[in-house]
């Protein structure tokens, strides 16, 4: 006689959809807080509350139910001596013994999905973090224009050691220096020589080879509270770098030492009678002097990098500046 099926035995509760709806409600709140806090967020809150309540009700049903009286077992208990239990090592196996090392599709699937899901989660976390580490160094870099004050301050034919703040918000760390000479006017327009003090060897600050008249220092107020310091100088011997001895003539041509090219220069423009400093650019050599100078001009390149000659193939790409 076969044993009757226990139809009335309580089944384990089926999977509930309430938690998912609850999560959707929470997601709706979060999205709503950003998109539309007055309309979408309350809708999300309502969804979350309703389904949270249903979920809680569903999950606690087991504990809130009145216990049913258990009916006593009416079947006869088999006498043990007559029907001993079959030992585990006897009889037919329910399933063939797996080969050693044999693996089943489900275990393979579970392994692959665990590893795959882990990789996806790890990637979702790591890729933005690495991007945040790397990318800001290459985007939104630039050289904002700097107001260096009225043209009259730059006496014609004289050099001025001019220091300014490239990014005034960043403070002292963004202080840069340029050597500026007013060349008089060329074709009715003022002409300036503006040489960067960044050595073309490895970026140390080059110094004027000649007297610097610190006692005639002048501080000019530019736009946005920009403070520009101007010190007259007479770099009769050009410029020299204290770090590794690079030497330049007054036009910034390399004359001796390790630099691979001449000193960088700045573009400029005149607006409302004031001198504005624009982007810097790289220079190999300058032929001629002052306003008649012919400048071999290149895109701004880091110190020590060749922009001409065969060595330029070593630096085919420059980060966006």
């Amino acid at each position, binding site marked *: 006689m076969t044993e009757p099926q226990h139809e009335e035995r309580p089944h384990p509760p089926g999977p509930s959809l309430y938690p998912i709806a609850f999560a959707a409600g929470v997601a709706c709140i979060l999205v709503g807080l950003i998109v539309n806090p007055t309309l979408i967020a309350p809708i999300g809150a309502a969804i979350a509350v309703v389904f949270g309540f249903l979920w809680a009700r569903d999950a606690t049903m087991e504990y809130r139910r009145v216990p049913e009286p258990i009916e006593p077992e009416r079947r006869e208990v088999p006498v043990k001596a007559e029907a001993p239990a079959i030992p585990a090592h006897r009889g037919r196996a329910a399933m063939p013994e797996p080969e050693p090392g044999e693996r089943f599709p489900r275990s393979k699937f579970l392994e692959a999905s665990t590893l795959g899901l882990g990789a996806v989660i790890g990637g979702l976390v790591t890729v933005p973090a690495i991007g945040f580490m790397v990318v800001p160094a290459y985007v939104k870099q*630039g050289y904002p224009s700097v107001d260096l004050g009225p043209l009259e301050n730059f006496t014609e034919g004289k050099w001025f050691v001019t220091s300014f703040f490239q990014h005034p918000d960043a403070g*002292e760390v963004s202080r840069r220096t340029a050597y500026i000479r007013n060349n008089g006017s060329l074709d009715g327009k003022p002409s300036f020589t503006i040489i960067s003090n960044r050595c073309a060897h*490895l970026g140390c600050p080059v110094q004027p080879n000649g007297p610097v008249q610190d006692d005639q220092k002048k501080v000019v107020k530019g736009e946005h509270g920009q403070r520009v310091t101007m010190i007259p100088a007479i770099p009769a011997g050009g410029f020299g770098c204290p770090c590794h001895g690079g030497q330049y003539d007054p036009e910034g041509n390399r004359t001796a030492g390790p630099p691979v090219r001449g000193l960088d220069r700045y573009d400029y423009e005149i607006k409302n009678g004031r001198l504005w400093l624009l982007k810097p650019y790289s220079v190999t050599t300058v032929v001629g002097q002052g306003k008649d100078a012919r400048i071999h001009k290149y895109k701004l390149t880091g*110190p020590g990098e060749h922009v001409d000659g065969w060595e330029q193939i070593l630096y085919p790409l420059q*980060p966006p500046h």
Partner: protein
Amino acid sequence: MTVAPPRRRKSARRQRLEGAITYPIDWLEERSGLIGGLRYFLFRKVPGDTNWFHTLGSATLTAFLVQALTGVILAMYYQPDPNTAYQSINHITNDLTLGWLVRGMHKWGASVFIILLFFHMARVFLFGAYKYPRELNWIVGVMLLVFGMLEGFTGYLLPWDQTAYWATVVGINLNGTAPILGPFLADFLRGGAEIGPDTLSRFYSLHMLLIPGAIFALIGLHLYLVVRLGVSSPPWSGQAAGSDYVEVTPTTNGRSGLTQPSARSGWRRNGGES
């Protein structure tokens, strides 16, 4: 040679005392096996003719741990901000109790670490201890050297004085002259086209977190390989390198290299003698 007197039985009081002392150790060992693991790690057989040169590795490790400890404490007072970094270093050195000592330990200890690292490297090289099967450990050691140098490079900027600033300018631009990717590497190190506030905090983070983390991990690997492969004998040793491996019965891990010396290593010849 006298026969040792029979061991007296310990008094009950002494036994109880010892039990009380070892109880926490036993408790830990029973639940974690950590004490046994530590014994396995620390109390190892080494060749009988090891000498003082074999201590250079632990000396380097000690120097690194001193750097880690003093660095963590310095980080409690240092401020990686362009406007206050130099002042905070001044404050550490001149105002805070024992600040001069801890900063000095960190500053001079950095050189001690690098010097010991090179001595250790020279020992390994001259003793031929980098040879099979220890090549991987040599490679890990070279990576540790590189990361140690990166620590030096990133740490040099942190005092934020003129030397620090311009040395870093030159160092970054030097990296910038590397072919093709150099300019990008320089921008990455600077955190932009020019040195700015981000450069200092970036170097601070690299110096404090990323590189030391890598060094700790590599030291772990380095020590694991030392424990696994054992300490090598000096080149003039009459003792066989790895002779204790030759005598044990083959293990089941299928690595014939350690249990059955191959013809190309000198172990069979030496192993036969011992």
